[in-house]
């Protein structure tokens, strides 16, 4: 079954601390994975996708096929990182995005 799991509904860290938002997936094919972010009172938007292998706003995510994970990391959290983060998997069979339940990240000053 195709599934995306974000085990943490809420993650709270202090400003300047490292952040890791976990994402695990279940998919038999070659996965294409995304992180989307929704800041307060703003629309959902793409943060990064694994095929780009880029760092956006200091965030990186590495696809680990052995552990079927795509965790989002940032070495030093900033207050403006507080948002809802969604991990999503593109199912190549029907080109639909399969979404995790989301993790609310709160950065404490």
């Amino acid at each position, binding site marked *: 079954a195709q599934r*995306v799991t*974000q085990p943490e*509904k809420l993650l709270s860290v202090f400003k300047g601390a490292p952040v890791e938002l976990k994402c695990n997936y279940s998919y038999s094919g070659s996965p*294409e994975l995304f992180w989307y972010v929704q800041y307060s009172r703003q*629309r*959902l*938007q*793409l943060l990064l*996708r694994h095929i780009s292998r880029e760092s956006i706003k200091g965030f990186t995510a590495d696809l680990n096929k052995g552990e079927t994970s795509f965790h989002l990391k940032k070495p030093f959290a900033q207050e403006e990182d507080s948002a809802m983060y*969604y991990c*999503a998997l*593109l199912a190549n069979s029907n*080109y*639909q*995005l399969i*979404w*995790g*339940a*989301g993790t609310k990240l709160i950065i404490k000053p």
Partner: protein
Amino acid sequence: DVKVTQSSRYLVKRTGEKVFLECVQDMDHENMFWYRQDPGLGLRLIYFSYDVKMKEKGDIPEGYSVSREKKERFSLILESASTNQTSMYLCASSLGGLTDTQYFGPGTRLTVL
């Protein structure tokens, strides 16, 4: 800059009413999507459309229908609203390939009483 707009930010309807949610994108995108967003469940795809007059069911199409008469407009219809359809509804569009980045509208928070 891609602009996806939704007709209402907030909507309150009564059980049994017919509800129309409109979505318009101004970037000539081929694909349009309707999701509902519920706490703890993430986003769930209701319907999507990859061309004018074309539609495909998503994960939770029951109780919903869609219409895409023009490329820029994708409507979600609740034929007979029920309280379990109270939710945040998000519209999205993407350019051409179905793997392209999806751009989202601001959302419509629908309450069914």
